[in-house]
C-alpha cells in the first residue's frame, strides 16, 4: 500500500468513526434525557401508586359503604367490604341484585340529580337487605369527571330511622292526650307542642315552635303569672298551679299547669316540660255545684223560717174574722181590715217561700204544654203595653209532660211578666215551643237532668238584658235587679223550684242591650198529644 492511500483510508475510517461517534453521542444524550424524564415519570407513577394504595386502603377499610357505579345502567364496577356487609351481600353480583331492588322513584331521583347537578347528597332510601331485613341507607353520590360513572358513599341509618320511628310513635301517643304538652327552653322558647296543645289553644305546632310562650299565651297583666312561675322553676325545678291563658281566638281559658325541668338528651341543656289541663269547664261546674248547694241551704233555712212565720201569722188571720163581729166603730174595723190584709200578705209570702223551698208536689197529670202556654199568653196579652208585640210560635205536635197545670202556669206567667218588665221602651216578646232530645252538651250543664226527649218552652224578649255578673245570681231567692220594694226576688227562684220538681231545668241566655231568652226544659211523655 502507498503512503497516500493509507492516509486516505485512515481519513475515511476516521471521518466515518467521528460521524458515527457524533451520532451515537447525540443518541446517547437523547436517551439519557429521556431516561431522566422516564425516571421522573416513574417517581410520579410511584407516587400515584402509593397514593392509590393509600386511598385503596381507605376505600377498603372505610366503615361507610363505597361503590362505583354507572349512573345510566346502575352497573356496579367496584364496591368495598362495608357496603357488602351493609347489604348482606358477598359478591358484586349480589350487591347488584340488592341495588336493583331499590324503589324506582329513588333510582330516578338519584339519576336525575347526579345527571343534572353532578351529585346527590344524603338521600334517604328504604330497601331490604339480601336476607330480607329492613335497611335504611343514607345515599350520597358524585359523578366522576370521566365517563358516566359515579362514586357513592352509603351509610347505614337503619337504627337511627328505627329510633326516629319510635320517637314518632311516642309523639303520636303524646298527641293522643287531651292535655296540652309543651317543652320550652329556659327563655320560654317553645321547642315542642303536641296535638292536645294545638286543640286547646288553636295555635298549630309550626306556629308555636320557636316562639316565646309568654308572648302568646300570657296577655297583658297575665305575664306576671308566667314570670312568677319561671322564678319558681329556677329555684325549685318544678311548679304547679293555675293560670289563665289566652287562646288564638282571644278567648281566655283557665288551665291547671304542671311544670318540670328536664334535661335535653343530646347536650344536657335544661328545658321545661309543661303539661296543661283545661279546667275552665270544671271550674264552672264546680261553682255551679257550690251555688246549687248554697241555694239548697237557703231553701232549707227559708223553708224553716217560713213555716214558723206561717204558724205565727195563721192565728192572726183567723183572729181577725173572730174579732170583726165584736168591733162596731168604723176606725176599729179599718184597723182590723189592715191587720187582716197584712197577715194575708204575709201568709202569701210564706206560701211562696215554701214553694221555693220544697216545691209543691201538686197533682201530676199529663199536661199539654201548648194549652198551658196558650192560656197564660191570653192572660199576659191583656196586660202588655202597646209598645210590646207578642209573637207566638206554638204550632206543631208536642208531647205531653207530666206536671201540675197551675204550677206550670205560674212558671210561664212569671217569665212573661219578667220579659215584659225588661222592655220598658217596648219590643218583641216571643214565646215558642219545641221538642228536643237532650244531648251530652246540654246535660253537662244540668247534671241532675235525665237523658231523653224534652219539651222546650222559650220566652225571649228584646229588652235590656241581664249583666253577666247578675246572670249567675238571678235564681237566688230574694235577688232582684228591680228597685227596692218593687219585687220580692222570689219569682225566678220559685219558677226554678217548680221546674226542678217537674224534673226539668231552666237555662238563660242574655246579652246586655239585646235581650234575654229563658228556656224551660220539661221531660216529655213518650206519646205525643196533638
Amino acid at each position, binding site marked *: 500500500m502507498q503512503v497516500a492511500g493509507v492516509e486516505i483510508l485512515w481519513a*475515511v475510517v476516521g471521518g*466515518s468513526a467521528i460521524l*458515527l461517534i457524533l*451520532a*451515537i453521542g447525540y443518541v446517547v444524550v*437523547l436517551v439519557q434525557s429521556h431516561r431522566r424524564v422516564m425516571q421522573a415519570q416513574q417517581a410520579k407513577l410511584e407516587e400515584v401508586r402509593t397514593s392509590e394504595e393509600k386511598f385503596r386502603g381507605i376505600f377498603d377499610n372505610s366503615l361507610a359503604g363505597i361503590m362505583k357505579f354507572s349512573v345510566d345502567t346502575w352497573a356496579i364496577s367496584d364496591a368495598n367490604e362495608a357496603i357488602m356487609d351493609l347489604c348482606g351481600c358477598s359478591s358484586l353480583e349480589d350487591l347488584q341484585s340488592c341495588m336493583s331492588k331499590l324503589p324506582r322513584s329513588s333510582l330516578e331521583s338519584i339519576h336525575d340529580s347526579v345527571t343534572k347537578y353532578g351529585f346527590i347528597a344524603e338521600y334517604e332510601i328504604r330497601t331490604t337487605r339480601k336476607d330480607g331485613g329492613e335497611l335504611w341507607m343514607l345515599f350520597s353520590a358524585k359523578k366522576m369527571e370521566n365517563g358516566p360513572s359515579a362514586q357513592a358513599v352509603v351509610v347505614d341509618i337503619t337504627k337511627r330511622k328505627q329510633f326516629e320511628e319510635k320517637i314518632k310513635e311516642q309523639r303520636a301517643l303524646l298527641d293522643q292526650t287531651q292535655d296540652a304538652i309543651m317543652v320550652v327552653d329556659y327563655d320560654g322558647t317553645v321547642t315542642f307542642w303536641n296535638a292536645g296543645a294545638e286543640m286547646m289553644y288553636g295555635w298549630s305546632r309550626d306556629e308555636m315552635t320557636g316562639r316565646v310562650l309568654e308572648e302568646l299565651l300570657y296577655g297583658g297583666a297575665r305575664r306576671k303569672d308566667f314570670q312568677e312561675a319561671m322564678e319558681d322553676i329556677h329555684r325549685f325545678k318544678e311548679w304547679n298551679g293555675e293560670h289563665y291563658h289566652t287562646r288564638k281566638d282571644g278567648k281566655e281559658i283557665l288551665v291547671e299547669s304542671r311544670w318540670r325541668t328536664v334535661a335535653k338528651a343530646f347536650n344536657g341543656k335544661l328545658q321545661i316540660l309543661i303539661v296543661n289541663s283545661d279546667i275552665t269547664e270544671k271550674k264552672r261546674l264546680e261553682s255551679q255545684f257550690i251555688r246549687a248547694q248554697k241555694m239548697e241551704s237557703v231553701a232549707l233555712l227559708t223553708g224553716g223560717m217560713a213555716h214558723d212565720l206561717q204558724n205565727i201569722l195563721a192565728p192572726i188571720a183567723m183572729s181577725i174574722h173572730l174579732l170583726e163581729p165584736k168591733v162596731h166603730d168604723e176606725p176599729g174595723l179599718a184597723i182590723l181590715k189592715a191587720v187582716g190584709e197584712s197577715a194575708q200578705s204575709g201568709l202569701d209570702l210564706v206560701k211562696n217561700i215554701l214553694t221555693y223551698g220544697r216545691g209543691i208536689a201538686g197533682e201530676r197529670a199529663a199536661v199539654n204544654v201548648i194549652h198551658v202556654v196558650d192560656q197564660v199568653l191570653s192572660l199576659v196579652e191583656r196586660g202588655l203595653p202597646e209598645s210590646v208585640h207578642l209573637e207566638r210560635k206554638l204550632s206543631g205536635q208536642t208531647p205531653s209532660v207530666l206536671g201540675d197545670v197551675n204550677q206550670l202556669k205560674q212558671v210561664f206567667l212569671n217569665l212573661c211578666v219578667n220579659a215584659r218588665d225588661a222592655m220598658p221602651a217596648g219590643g218583641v216578646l216571643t214565646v215558642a215551643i219545641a221538642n228536643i232530645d237532650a244531648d251530652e252538651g246540654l246535660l253537662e250543664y244540668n247534671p241532675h237532668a235525665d237523658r231523653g226527649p224534652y219539651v222546650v218552652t222559650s220566652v225571649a224578649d228584646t229588652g235590656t238584658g241581664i249583666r253577666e255578673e247578675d246572670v249567675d245570681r238571678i235564681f237566688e231567692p230574694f235577688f232582684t235587679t228591680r228597685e227596692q220594694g218593687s219585687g220580692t226576688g222570689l219569682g225566678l227562684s220559685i219558677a226554678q223550684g217548680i221546674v226542678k220538681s217537674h224534673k226539668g231545668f231552666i237555662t238563660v241566655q242574655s246579652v246586655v242591650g239585646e235581650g234575654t231568652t229563658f228556656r224551660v226544659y220539661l221531660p216529655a211523655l213518650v206519646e205525643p198529644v196533638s
Partner: protein
Amino acid sequence: MSAILRSPGSTKQVITMAIPIFGQIHLASFLIPASAGVTKFRTLNKAMRILAVLCLFACLDVILQVLLSMRNVKNYFISDYYRVIETSFLCAVFYYSVAPKGVRDVLRGLGIIFAVIWGADVIWFNSHDQISSGMAMISRAFVLAMSLIALQATLRDERSNLVERPIFWVAMGAILYSSGTLLLVGLSNQLLALGQSYFVAAWHINWTLLIIANLFYTKGMLCKSQA
C-alpha cells in the same frame, strides 16, 4: 465466493472480486429482518409492515445484484432505484411511527424533497453507467435526518419504555448505518481509485454497520409492543 461488489458510491467500471467472509455474512444478514418480517407480519403495526416489505426488497436487491454481476451485467441501476425505495420506505416507516402532526409534516416534506432530487438526478445527471456517489450521500443524509427527527419525536412521547418501542430500534439502526457510511459512500470513488485492497478494507465499515442495522430492524419487528 466471488461477486460484483455493490457499492453505495459510484464506480465507473465493473469490479469483479472475491467477497470476503465478512461480506458474505453481511449478505446473509439481510435474511434475518426479512424472515422476521414475514413470520411476524400479521402482528406488526403499519410502520413495521412497511419495514418488513423494505427488508424483502433489500433481499431482492441483493439477489438481483449478485445474479447480474455473475453474468457480468452492470447492476448500478438497481442500486439507483433501490435507493429511492429504501429512503421512501424508511420515510413512511418514520411517518407512521410518530404521532405529532408537525413532525409528520416535516417527514413528508423531506420525503418529497428527496424524491424530487432523486428524480432530477435520474433524469438529468445519472447515466446509469456508473453509481452516483453524490446521490448515495444525499440519501444517507436524508435518512439520517429523518431518523434523528423520528427518534427525537419518539423520546418526547413518555408513554412507555423506549426499548420496548419498535421505532427506537429502527431509528437507531438507521442512524448508525447512515452516519457511519455517510463519508464512506461520499469518498467511495476515491477509495476505488486507490485500489481494491483499500476499498475492501474500508468497506468493512459498511458491512459491519449494515449487519448492525439489520439486527436493529429485526429487533424492532420483534418488539411486543406494536402500538
